[in-house]
């Protein structure tokens, strides 16, 4: 096998693609709260903390582990926030990702019940630590799920942005709320993305929001058949320009988000048939994949590999 041939499996596990996250997961499995705490302390950047928290959220054993941590350290902002985030994931799994009309009354009640538990923890954490990004970001999600209204979601984002003006996972979360599926509008969604991009320093993660908003619009359009929305040259150029200001800019700081950033750009381009333009992103990624956006269009691994093959053949 030639040394340049890409591996035939895609790797979705963040603890493999970002090796240091494996230490975190190990600590979770070992019931070692001290190491978890030290790990989050050690990570220097809020964006990376958000990705690391995502690893904790998705582990089904986290709930008990974190409840024990909160019981022994009731003042710990980290323990309470991670537990709240786990409650949100549990609730959302019950709600399922279907649109509201496919979710039963019972599911909604349980979903809201978990979100309320999360919110109680987060209200106190934010009251005690007004600059604690992870808790404010989680409150964007609870506010969305509890349907607290757009002005409240925006207020929460503003409280977060006061201290962390370019927090990419919070921006992504607010963008979701601004899309029509959550009661927003494309005008608001695009305007928010524009504001994030314009206010961010060159090389920031914010460029990815451009690809995200176009993907959302395409998904919204692709109810029965895949839409042509992403095929337009205008959309393509906007995505490429955003990439140039972001992941392709010399000041880009990859952090833990780089894999998500590149997958999002690659996906938005491929799903519009712009495989040649997507090739550079795949070359950087190798086999490192994220669930989004591939899971939207079928089996995530099949989709990632198929589009990567086409892209690398063309570009």
């Amino acid at each position, binding site marked *: 096998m030639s040394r340049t041939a890409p591996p035939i499996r895609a790797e979705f596990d963040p603890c493999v693609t970002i090796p240091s996250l494996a230490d975190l997961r190990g600590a979770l499995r070992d019931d070692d709260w001290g190491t978890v705490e030290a790990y989050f302390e050690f990570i220097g950047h809020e964006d990376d903390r958000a990705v690391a928290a995502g690893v904790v959220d998705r582990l089904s054993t986290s709930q008990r582990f974190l409840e024990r941590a909160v019981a022994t350290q009731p003042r710990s902002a980290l323990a309470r926030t991670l537990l709240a985030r786990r409650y949100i994931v549990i609730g959302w799994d019950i709600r399922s990702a279907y649109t509201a009309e496919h979710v039963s009354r019972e599911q909604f009640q349980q979903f*809201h019940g978990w*979100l*309320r538990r999360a*919110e*109680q923890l987060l*209200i*106190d954490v*934010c*009251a*005690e*630590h*007004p600059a604690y990004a992870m808790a404010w970001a989680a409150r964007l999600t*609870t*506010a969305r799920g*509890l*349907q*607290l*209204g*757009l*002005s*409240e979601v*925006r*207020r*929460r984002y*503003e*409280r977060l942005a006061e201290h962390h003006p370019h927090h990419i996972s919070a921006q992504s979360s607010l963008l979701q709320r601004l899309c029509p599926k959550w009661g927003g509008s494309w005008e608001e969604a695009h305007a928010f993305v524009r504001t994030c991009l314009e206010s961010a320093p060159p090389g920031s993660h914010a460029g990815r929001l451009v690809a995200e908003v176009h993907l959302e619009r395409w998904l919204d359009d692709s109810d029965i058949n895949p839409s042509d929305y992403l095929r337009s040259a205008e959309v393509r150029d906007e995505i490429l320009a955003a990439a140039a200001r972001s992941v392709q800019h010399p000041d880009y700081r990859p952090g833990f988000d780089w894999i998500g950033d590149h997958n999002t750009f690659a996906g938005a381009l491929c799903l519009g048939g712009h495989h040649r333009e997507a090739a550079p992103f795949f070359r950087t990624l190798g086999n490192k994949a994220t669930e989004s956006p591939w899971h939207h269009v079928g089996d995530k691994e099949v989709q990632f590999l198929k589009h990567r093959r086409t892209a690398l053949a063309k570009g």
Partner: protein
Amino acid sequence: MSRTTQGLGPTTPPIRRTEVDGIRTVLTAASGPVTAGLLFRVGVADETLATTGITHLVEHLALHRHGLSDLHYNGATGVTYTLFHATGTPEEVVTYLNGVCAALRDLPLERLETEREILRTEAAGRSRRPGHQLPLWRYGAQGYGLSSYGEHGTWHLTADAVRDWAYTRFTRDNAVLWITTDTVPQGLDLTLPAGVPRPLPAPTSALPVTPAYITGGGGGVVMDGIVRRSTAASLFAEVLRRALFTDLRQKGGYSYTADADYSPRDNEFATVTAFADALPSKQDAVVGGFVDVLARLRAGSIGQAELESARAKVLKQYDTPDVTAAQLPSHALNLLTGHSNLTEHEHRAELAGVTPDDLREVARELHSTALLQVPGRGADWAGFTAAPQWSTDTPTAPGTRHPSLEDGSTLLTVAPDAVSLTTPAGQVVIRYDACAALLVHPDGGRHLTGLDGFLIRVEPTLYKGLTPDRTAVIDAAVPAAAVVRMPPRDPDGIPRPERRSRVRRTAASRLGALFGRRRG
């Protein structure tokens, strides 16, 4: 600082206690014209729902003879006290007070009908303050909850009832007088009947779980809570006011007005009320911001600077001339209810001793007893429990059943011991022996309000088989003291069943008009 902080110097003349015609009196000299106030320990909380307004009627009748004059005077009926006050020359003040007492001894009851009408007109034109519904949800339709209600007494109170109220409540033993002079002015004749000092009403409860919430109101957020009376709690209200203003108006731009207030309820507890209005598109943010401000004061950090600026504001009262005179009204009120008064020295010492931890403790107490009113959706997400929407009572005896003519799923039952309204969502029951007021309309309508604040409108036009012999059961069973005989209603004011097709759309709002917990 240009003055001593301990206030023991010559700047604070003492308050002198004396007695005028058997009325406890407090005096202290002040510059400028003389102000006097005659306080009685009777207010809205002492009334019943059927007699609401009786104290106000006495106040109006007592002032009637003063008519138009240049003298600055007025009367005020509060929740637990009634005040007559005037400012002018000593002679003018003496004339005023003598006139009030003469009128109280012998009310111009030939004016009763007119004054009842004046009060009804006043009530129609009065705008309700934000949060005026909170007392009825907290206390029900009795005691401190009555301040939420209109004045039912203005429809039916007789001369005998009003005379008796004045004779038993507006007595020399249930009064305190204050005057801003160093000696009692010449010529006072404040002869009043002897009586007994009336204790403050005991609080009732219609709110089983707190923190609680209700929905409604004009788009703003309002909350109250009950805390122990203390210097720290009064200081806390100032900290809360500033925090709400900073977060909701200055920082967020969600509100125009944000305010908080501390006011003693009785000798042990005070009510802290907080309010923020909301731009229509920012209502959710105001609710969220409000919840977060309270959470920060309860769980987060209260800055030393916040405490200092609140303290400075409270201390400002001592920077005015005639400090002692300015404190005379609250001093007199405490004397009236039997609550101790702090000297300036003691108050300053208490203020100086308040720490951020003390404020946090007040915030926790406030939160644990809070009743929050929010627009739109509820506040369960923030840990508040919905205030009871349905009765827990059930009638014990079977009764006649009267289906709604509008909505087949609603059933009115008239039983020998209670009226109940059953809907698919829940039941409201009003027992006759716990009926605060029964409004009797000549057209057959009967509106019952329970002591817990629930209301059922029994309308023969809206329920099947609700014949006069059925409403007669209600009339016979409700205690006479709760009955309010109303004048004939405007024909448009008598409800008519709506056509079926419209009912479905308007069922919710119509049901809201037929029962619930609202001002009667």
